[in-house]
């Protein structure tokens, strides 16, 4: 594949890995968090861990949009899906996320009309094809996917589609990062910044990380060379005693992001005072809801949803995993009570989740050399 294979060149990967080895200070342990689930996925998919010295440890962050949805929100979604005549649409990964009593896939087997879509526009298309039935889109994701939801709602409004609704679970990246950095048990040496989110928000919102918390960060792309390059950049900063935001993904990410996407987001969404994150509790101003102008398309307003907060399962330690405090295998139920086939916590649900990734690929990431 043109413009993709270039970023998967094993020969260049070897060169970068060699240079990384040279940047590592013998005997020192480095812990870097890749914020975005997409990076976690790349790291495992390409076996990037195998190319790093064992004292460079990658910690999986809170940036998997499916993983951070709390049980109560899943329950609300299932309750909407069971409303008479409703066609409920969502992304495929969401289908398997456990609520307090089953998943959306179970609700589908019980008779709810739940359809997997690949884009909010698909949901709008379904709404137009079924004008006599309400169609609800279960929106999830960070600033990466929020603009496409916003544009779809805008289009539905402009076209006068009356049967299209949205249950908004969009979240923003900076508040959970700040919550992480404020947590006393966190020990990190740097961040691999979220490339996709940054295409929308730009690099500027991450300036507080080096400024206030003295941690270097490199916003990175998702091909294996991108990830290695970002690690190289962070290690170089540490070696040279610098601490700043760098943009590894400059071929895609402008420093100030995408102003048009930000504009449509601010038109369609407004910040919720609080939003609950699985395992991390409530974080102020971290979630989005539909703005007043779009209230008639807000499924949470137009339908009554239980809105009950469901405590995370006690045994599940998704929160600590998301914070990077423990490794997936250190969780009490990992691999016994909680497996990819029968997940308890959402870190196990999505293939991007830290636990699912470790369950599937963990064993072979460990036989590395320590410098």
């Amino acid at each position, binding site marked *: 594949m043109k413009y993709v294979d270039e970023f998967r060149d094993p020969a260049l990967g070897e060169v970068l890995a060699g240079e990384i080895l040279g940047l590592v200070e013998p005997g020192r342990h480095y812990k870097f968090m890749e914020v975005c689930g997409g990076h976690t996925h790349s790291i495992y*998919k*390409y076996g990037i861990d195998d190319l790093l010295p064992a004292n460079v440890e990658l910690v999986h962050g809170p940036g998997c949009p499916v993983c951070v949805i709390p049980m109560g929100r899943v329950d609300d979604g299932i309750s909407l899906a069971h409303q008479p005549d409703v066609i409920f649409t969502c992304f495929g990964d969401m289908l398997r996320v456990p609520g307090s009593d089953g998943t959306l896939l*179970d609700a*589908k087997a019980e008779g709810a009309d739940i359809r997997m879509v690949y884009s909010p526009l698909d949901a709008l298309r379904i709404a137009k094809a079924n004008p006599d039935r309400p169609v609800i889109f279960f929106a999830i994701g960070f600033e990466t996917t929020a603009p496409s939801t916003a544009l779809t709602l805008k289009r539905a409004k402009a076209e006068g589609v009356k049967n299209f609704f949205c249950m908004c679970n969009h979240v923003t990246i900076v508040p959970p990062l700040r919550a992480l950095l404020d947590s006393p048990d966190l020990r990190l040496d740097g961040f691999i910044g979220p490339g996709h989110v940054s295409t929308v928000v730009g690099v500027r919102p991450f300036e507080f990380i080096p400024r206030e918390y003295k941690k270097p960060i490199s916003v990175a792309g998702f091909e294996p060379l991108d990830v290695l390059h970002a690690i190289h950049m962070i290690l170089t900063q540490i070696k040279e005693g610098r601490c700043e935001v760098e943009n590894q993904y400059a071929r895609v990410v402008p420093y100030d992001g995408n102003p048009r996407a930000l504009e449509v987001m601010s038109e369609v969404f407004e910040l919720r005072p609080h939003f609950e994150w699985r395992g991390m509790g409530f974080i102020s101003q971290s979630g989005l809801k539909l703005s007043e102008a779009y209230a008639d398309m807000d499924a949470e307003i137009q339908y009554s949803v239980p809105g009950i907060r469901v405590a995370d399962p006690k045994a599940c330690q998704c929160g600590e995993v998301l914070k990077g405090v423990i*490794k997936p295998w*250190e969780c009490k139920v990992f691999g016994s009570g909680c497996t990819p086939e029968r997940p308890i916590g959402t870190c196990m649900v999505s293939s991007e989740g830290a636990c699912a990734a470790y369950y*599937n690929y963990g*064993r072979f990431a460990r036989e590395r050399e320590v410098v």
Partner: protein
Amino acid sequence: MPSEVSERERKVLDIIETARAKRAKFRDAQITMAHGAGGKATASLIEGLLVPAFSNESLDQMADAGTVSVLGGQIVMTTDSFVVKPIVFPGGSIGDLAVNGTVNDVAMAGARPLALSLSLILEEGLPADTLKREVAAIAKAAEAAGVSIVTGDTKVVERGHCDEMYICTTGIGLLGDRTALSPSSLKPGDKILVSGRIGDHGTAIMLARGEFELDADIKSDTQCLWPMVDKLLDAAGPSLKCLRDATRGGVASVLNELARASRVAMIINEAAVPVHPAVAGAAEILGIDPMHVANEGKLVAIVAPEAADAALAALRSMPGGEEAAEIGECKTEPEGMVLMATAFGGKRVMDQLVGDPLPRIC
């Protein structure tokens, strides 16, 4: 020096591996679409409910076809249902699949396909022209495969109770004496071959549904694999250990089943796996691994190392096998697992499919 892995981490990883190697349990409260996807949920249904209920020597092998001894000879028997949506797609239709799918399961036992039964379940309101077209497709595919349709059945259900038409076929074939194939006969050192580019069928169906607004010239690979198997049996004889056609769940699922059945590890060389560039592109966009995508005319062959070259040459000499490749080999450790050596230079576990990216593929 190797990195320190704590005793506790090792213990947890060992638990996972033991769990992986175990026969799956069927514990679900109801059937979901995942049970039809050919991945882990399907395995739990088959291994946890069906096989224990009907256990016998032939079924317990869990091969693509069972064997029955008749008058001193060995008859191979298999059955399959076809519910593909849409019923017509680039490269074929439900009629082609109904013949080739069953014939191929017979062929994977190393048996020459002889005869098929044909059951049609038709939806009220199905246009006669659609039915005639599919009947013609069935007749043509059967002729090409050299099998007779010797019996059949028809049922009609109310509108909405089936989607246009479903087809069930049962096939029998005659087992020769060139080799005894078994999924539990694999040994470390055996080579793993595929008969061509993988993932074409699943991708063609996906694009034919028009849900993704992707356009690419991909055709289903549906074809009868018996001529290829015939040639392979001549070329490799007893060195041919096992054959599988990589339908639902793709090549990855087949390899996982075999690795578990034979208690070997497999290491696959990602760069050696033949994939059509358009299939790779579609899979990339949709976040699917071509190793998990269904095929309808591709086989996986496990061959002892000394016969690997001859087997590969035999595959490549046949129509549809031109791009056959050796993609990996069996190893000792870690038992029951399939590893992928990535083109980038790392390694990952190539697990069975979990969940269902694409229902009703065949």
